[in-house]
């Protein structure tokens, strides 16, 4: 029993961490938290089930197509919900524009895909049980993303340009970096990561439009606790969240697990609004 709690906790935690990273990648490029992070995760699952189960594509084709769908949605997010409002002085507009887009994605899915949670195909023809693929796939995806991002940031010029923009957008612009294309590329990358989270976690979460708000919330918890922009923080906090949630689920039941997660989230946010790692006070006057 302990084993299954730990396994499912870590697997769910990996999904939350990946959504957290999706938030972070978008945030680093634009200082915008986008509500579409959860919708991207939801779509990863729905697109996977659509391509592989309903349209009968092989995994080797359905998987890249699902990621491509995420990339496209990432770019759409940047183009219609972020770019137009970044210029505005009214800083909260992005909250509304990304919320609107996220709701549109969610509703579109509800109508075209249906409001029932549908099963996600088993990707590999392996026997069930024990350390099942539904557990190790999210973990593998999370590890792959962490390693991939690390390679990108450490060894490519575009990765360094992402870091430069995250650190000081103004200086990056003054230096002549193509800030807009880089931002778009970040959103495309975030789209792929979000879709990967939903795809890898498809078997656990199912292909369900209602996952969008859940992932939007539970994926943001690691960001808030781990410190915005910090991927390492998101992974640690995501795994802890997953374990805590599954353990509480088992020990005290679903209601109180949710209430407990929410309470912890609020208390930590109130005590440390900048996350457990790092704090920066902005000059207001």
């Amino acid at each position: 029993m302990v084993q299954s709690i730990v396994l499912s906790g870590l697997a769910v935690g990996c999904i939350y961490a990946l959504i957290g990273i999706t938030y972070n990648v978008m945030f680093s490029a634009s200082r915008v938290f986008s509500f579409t992070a959860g919708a991207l995760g939801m779509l990863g699952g729905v697109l996977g089930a659509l391509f592989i189960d309903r349209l009968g594509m092989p995994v080797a084709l359905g998987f890249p197509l699902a990621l491509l769908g995420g990339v496209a949605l990432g770019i759409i997010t940047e183009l219609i919900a972020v770019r137009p409002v970044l210029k505005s002085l009214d800083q909260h507009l992005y909250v509304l524009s990304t919320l609107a887009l996220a709701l549109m994605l969610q509703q579109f899915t509800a109508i075209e895909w249906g409001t029932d949670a549908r099963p996600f195909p088993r990707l590999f023809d392996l026997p069930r049980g024990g350390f099942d693929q539904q557990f190790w796939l999210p973990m593998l995806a999370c590890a792959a993303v962490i390693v991939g991002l690390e390679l990108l940031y450490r060894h490519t010029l575009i990765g360094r340009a992402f870091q430069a923009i995250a650190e000081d957008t103004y200086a990056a612009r003054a230096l002549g970096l193509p800030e807009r294309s880089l931002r778009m590329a970040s959103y495309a990358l975030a789209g792929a990561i979000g879709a990967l989270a939903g795809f890898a976690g498809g078997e656990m979460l199912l292909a369900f439009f209602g996952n969008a708000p859940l992932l939007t919330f539970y994926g943001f918890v690691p960001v808030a606790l781990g410190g915005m922009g910090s991927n390492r923080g998101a992974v640690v906090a995501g795994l802890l969240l997953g374990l805590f949630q599954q353990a509480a689920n088992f020990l005290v039941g679903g209601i109180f697990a949710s209430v407990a997660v929410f309470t912890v989230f609020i208390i930590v946010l109130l005590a440390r609004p900048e996350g457990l790692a790092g704090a920066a006070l902005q000059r207001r006057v």
Partner: protein
Amino acid sequence: MQMPAAGLHPGRVNVLGSMSTIGALPLLALFAFGVALPLFGGGYWGVIATRACVYWVLVSGLNLVVGFAGQIAIGWVALLTLGAYTASVLVAGNAAPQLPAYLALAIAGVVGAVFGLIVGLPALRLRTFYFAITTLGFATIVTQVALAWQSVTGGGVGVAGPVFPPPFSSEWGFYYFCFGFAAICTWMTGNVAASRFGRALTAIRDAEVAAEASGISKPALLVTVFLFSGAVAGIAGGLFATLQSYITPDAFTLDLSVLFFIAILIGGRSSILGPLLGTILLTVLPEFAAPLVAWSTFLYAALLLVIVLAIPGGIAELLDFKNRRPLASDRAIVPRPELLPRLLGTPADAGALTLEQVALSFGGVHAIDGLDLEIRPSQVHGLIGPNGSGKTTTLNVISGYYAQHRGAVRLNGMALPVFARERRAHLRIARTFQTPRVVGSASVLQNVMIGGTIDGKGTFVESLLSLPRHRRDEAKLRDTAMLALTAVGLERLAAVRADRLQHSELRFIEIARALMLRPAYLLLDEPAAGLSGEEIKRLGTFLLAIAAAGTGVLVVEHHPDLIFDICHHVTVLNLGKKLAAGTPAEIRSHREVVNAYLGG
């Protein structure tokens, strides 16, 4: 431009009064339509109209949170859920002895208020996205609890809604019951919107630091508003349960929350009529286009996106024809210093404002390093120095944005509390900002009235119910604000939206707002920045007149001409320390100052 005659009584110009009369006409028309509705429609339309009323009861309260205070509360359906289950469960007697429907409804309101406060409290510390996501999280949790707590809520099976005794048991009877609540909510929130509380909420939304400088306590105000908003949401929940006659967790989807939230934004911020129309529109629209029902939330979301990108002001701004009229382009600001004694009265001697050995460093860098300063009533004190010398930091320590690490700031010998920014206004210390902070969507007069918020005597409840003290407060504030506007020479623009003004005009509006406090001390942060030479001269004369009326004026400024023209005393800072102090003539011939200033 012609100067108005000196004998003018600007306080008599009741700009707001005339505006609210125009604004009230559509509301009265809607009211009449609502009363007469049973004459027109059949049964089904009655249900739709009742639903619109119930939604509006909730939205009217949420409007103060979202539309006025600017808090992005997207999970308000949670309070509807709580209210609905509270009322239903209490009437059904699942958890406690059965209660009558009216009492259950009242308790639903209390529960709503308590949880409104709980959901809202994070807004005191969290901004925009963080707050939005906490309300979303709360909504998710409440539904999960409703589903899981079967013994009380009936779980997925649900529970019957309360039934009210006659005359409210019939369909139209219940309609009038809900309509009554809706009408009262409209009236009450309209009263608040036109009160100093409504203006203070918009100030918190658009110009938070200016709100603090005007003595507005954000926590106290938001707590009040969350309580009110939660209470009406809880009552709306109870009514909703009756309307549905049977409730399950499925009835409270996030879609509903989105509807409430979007109704407000489509309607427009700082408006009552706009969100009311928005609510009616969003409730009725799907009935006209049955095939679109499934798509309704999608369309609402699309509408929200369009509004955010194209018309951030919502319906209310589209209908604001008055503010489309072009303004005269050759307007000049001609202050009338002679009105200042009337505006400022004869201030009691507040004593000197002193800094003693104040030190403050940021990450090892000494921003201010052992600074002594004395500012006296009736004097203009100039604070100059190169960039990074600590001028604005000094001002921010005095007004409570930074806490000094050492030393004290005293007013008449009494130490000013650190960080308590809104306390400054109560001590009659007013300030302006480097970049003018105004509520762009409010009129110029309303902006100035914000400055007098703390002089109001009535409570929030008195404003809700438009009791006499509230009305006296408003009349007095309006008169004083008009006088302040006339003194700075901007009375002609009283009714104009503040965001249509030029930069220099906004500077003078800030000064007018600060004067509403009848300040003992007025702190100005680079007031001449962005002004033309002529405007700087007028500003100088005006500041001298403010000092002559008894106020101590501290000017942080780059413009040496302004400083040397008007200051009685000048302090020069360099690297956080006092480099020199004296009369303008002494400073001008001070070699070290010239060097530091020129960077030689």
